[in-house]
C-alpha cells in the first residue's frame, strides 16, 4: 500500500450528502478484473452525458478543479455498495484525501486500505473549507497524518480523529495480511480448539 504521511493539494468541494458508491463508480465499470485504471470512470454519470460528452459545469470538469487532490463532501460519503472500486477510482483520479462530516463504514475502511485518507471534520468546518475552495480557485489544504491536522494558508488549523493503529499502518504503508500472519500460530490454535470443542460445526 502507498504510504500517506503529509499531503498538500488543491481542494474541490461537492457539498452533497449521501454521495453513494454507485455514483462514485457506476456499475458498468466493475466488470474489469484489474485494480487500477478506474480514475477515468470516476463519477462517470455526473461527468459525462449518455453519449460521452463532457458535462462542463460539473465541478470536477471545471478548469479550476484541474489537478485537485483533496475532495470535500457532505455527510455519509461513500454509502451503498462495498465496492473497493470506489476508493480505487478516487485515488486513481488523483485524490489523496476526502474530507467529510461522516463516512459510510465500509467505504471508510476500504479507503484506508487503498492509501486514500478519509478525514472526518465537523459539519461547520467542512462547510467553511468548502466555502473557501469555492471562493478561491487555487485554494489548497494540507493534511498532516502524523499530527492528525488539517490546515490552510488562511489560518485554518484543526485536528481530526483517526484510529492509532490505522494511522500507523497508513504512515508506514503496511500490508494488513503481513501483519495478521504474524499471528499465524494464534489462528492455528483457534482452529484446533474449535475442532476439538465444537466438532459438530465443521463443514462436511
Amino acid at each position, binding site marked *: 500500500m502507498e504510504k500517506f504521511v503529509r499531503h498538500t493539494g488543491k481542494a474541490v468541494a461537492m457539498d452533497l450528502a449521501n454521495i453513494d458508491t454507485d455514483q462514485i463508480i457506476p456499475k458498468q465499470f466493475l466488470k474489469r*478484473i484489474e485494480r487500477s485504471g478506474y480514475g477515468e470512470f470516476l463519477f462517470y454519470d455526473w461527468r459525462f452525458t449518455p453519449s460521452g460528452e463532457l458535462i462542463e459545469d460539473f465541478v470536477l470538469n471545471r478548469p479550476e478543479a484541474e489537478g485537485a487532490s483533496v475532495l470535500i463532501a457532505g455527510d455519509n460519503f461513500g454509502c451503498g455498495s462495498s465496492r473497493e472500486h470506489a476508493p480505487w477510482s478516487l485515488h486513481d483520479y488523483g485524490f489523496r484525501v476526502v474530507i467529510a462530516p461522516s463516512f459510510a463504514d465500509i467505504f471508510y475502511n476500504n479507503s484506508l486500505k487503498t492509501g486514500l485518507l478519509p478525514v472526518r471534520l465537523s459539519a461547520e468546518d467542512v462547510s467553511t473549507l468548502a466555502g473557501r475552495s469555492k471562493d478561491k480557485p487555487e485554494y489548497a489544504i494540507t493534511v498532516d497524518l502524523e499530527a492528525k491536522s488539517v490546515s490552510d494558508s488562511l489560518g485554518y488549523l484543526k485536528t481530526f480523529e483517526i484510529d492509532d493503529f490505522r494511522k500507523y499502518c497508513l504512515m508506514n504503508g503496511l500490508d494488513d495480511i503481513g501483519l495478521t500472519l504474524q499471528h499465524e500460530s494464534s489462528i492455528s490454535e483457534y482452529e484446533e480448539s474449535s475442532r476439538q470443542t465444537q466438532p459438530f460445526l465443521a*463443514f*462436511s
Partner: protein
Amino acid sequence: MKTLYDKIWDAHIVHSESGKPSLLYVGLHLVHEVTSPQAFEGLRLNGRKVRRPDRTYATVDHAIPTKNRNLPFADPIAAKQVDTLRQNCKDFGVQLFDLDRIEQGIVHVFGPEQGLTRPGMTIVCGDSHTATHGAFGSLAFGIGTSEVEHVLATQTLQQAKAKNLLINVDGDLPFGVTAKDVILAIINRIGTAGGTGYVIEYAGSAIRSLSMEGRMTVCNMSIEAGARAGLIAPDESTYEYLNGRAFSPKEDDWDNAIEYWKTLPTDDGAMFDRTVEVDAAELAPFVTWGTSPEMSVTIGERVPDPAVIADENKRKSYERALEYMDLEPDQNIESIPLDRVFIGSCTNSRIEDLREAAKVVRGYKINSSVNAMVVPGSMQIKRQAEAEGLAAIFEGAGFEWRDAGCSMCLAMNDDVLAGGERCASTSNRNFEGRQGRGGRTHLVSPSMAAAAAIAGHFVDIRDWRFKEI
C-alpha cells in the same frame, strides 16, 4: 450479561491487543465474480494460498445474464470476469456453484438455502448486503476487496467492535404489511446513517412472527440504515428452516448444534447502547419516492413538499431527488405511472416472496404499459416455483420469468432501465442510476410490486381484490 452480538464476537476472537483492531475468525466466506478477481490476483502476486477452501464458497450472480444462459455472454468483459472466477476457484481449490448448478444464485440467497449460513457464525462476503445472513443469528457483514484477500489468506479479519443497537418491533403486523415494509419503516425512522457504527439486533413479537425469508428481508437492508450488520436471535423457525439442508449438521451433530445455538440469544438485562421501539400495528405498506431508501412514505400519503423543510441541506436533497424522480410536491403516490416492475434481488426473491406476489397476480394480466419481470434468487427457487405453479401464474399474466441472478437490482447485465423509465422494484437501493442511468426506482414489497404491475401504477395492496381460481 451479553447481547447476541457480544457472544458471537467473543467466540471468534483469535487475537486482541489494546489500541488495535481485534483479529476475528471467519466461519464462512462467500465469494462472487465482481469483488474477488483483484483479491485472488493479490494472493498470486504474494505466493499465498486460500487458507480454508472448505470455508469458502463461490457463485456467479452480479454480472451474469438472466436469460439465454446457454449462449455465450453478449458482454465479453462480463464473460472474462466469470471465466476469471472459474479459473481462480480451480487454482485455489474453492467450490464454485456455477451457472450449470441448481445451487447457483445470489450469494445471500444460496448460502442460507444450502445450510452454509448458521447461527452463531461469522460470515463475510465482498458485498454490502451480507447482513442478510444475520437473520439466522450469525454476525455477517460486507467487506471490500482488500479484506476479501485478507480473509482468503488468513481466514480472519481485523475488526473493531461496533456498538449495540436494539430495534424492537412489537405487535401484530396488519394485513398487507410485510417484512419489506418493516425495514423501510425503520430506515425512514432512523435515516440512512442512523445505524452507522452499530450492529443492529432486531427483536420483538413482530420480528419473531416473521418467516426466515421475512427475517432475511429485514436484515438485508441493515446497510441501508448505515449498519454493517443486523441480526435476529435464532429460534424454532431458524432450526426448522435449516434442518436437512445440504450443508446443515446431521444427526448427533445437529442436536449438539441446536444445544449450542440455544445459548446465543441476548441475555435478559444485557446492555444496548441505543434502543428504538417500533409499533407494528401502526405500519402500512411503504413506497420510496426519492433517491435514498429513507425517502419513503406509506401508500396513503403524498410526495413531500421540500418547501416546508426548514433544514437547508435536507431541503436541497429533497428538491434534487424530486427533480431526478420527475415527481411533483404533494403528488398522490397512487397516481405515479410505471413502465417497469422488477421482482427479484437478495431482498425479495425467495420462494415466499414469489408466493406472495403470485397470490396478487393470480387471475390478472399485467397492464399493457408495463414491462415486468420476475428473477428468482436461485435456480433452486426457480425450479420450486415452477413446481408449485407460480411460474405459470407469472408467465400467464405477462411477466418475464428469468434465471437466477442480481439482474436489475444493480443492472450490471442487460437488465437495465432506460433513461427516464420508472420502475417498481423489490430490491434495496433507489440511488440515482442504480438500475440504469436516468432510471427511476421506487422500492416496494413483492405484493405491492405485483399489484402495481397489474394496475400500471401504485395501488394499496390492502384494498386488493384477490382472485381465487
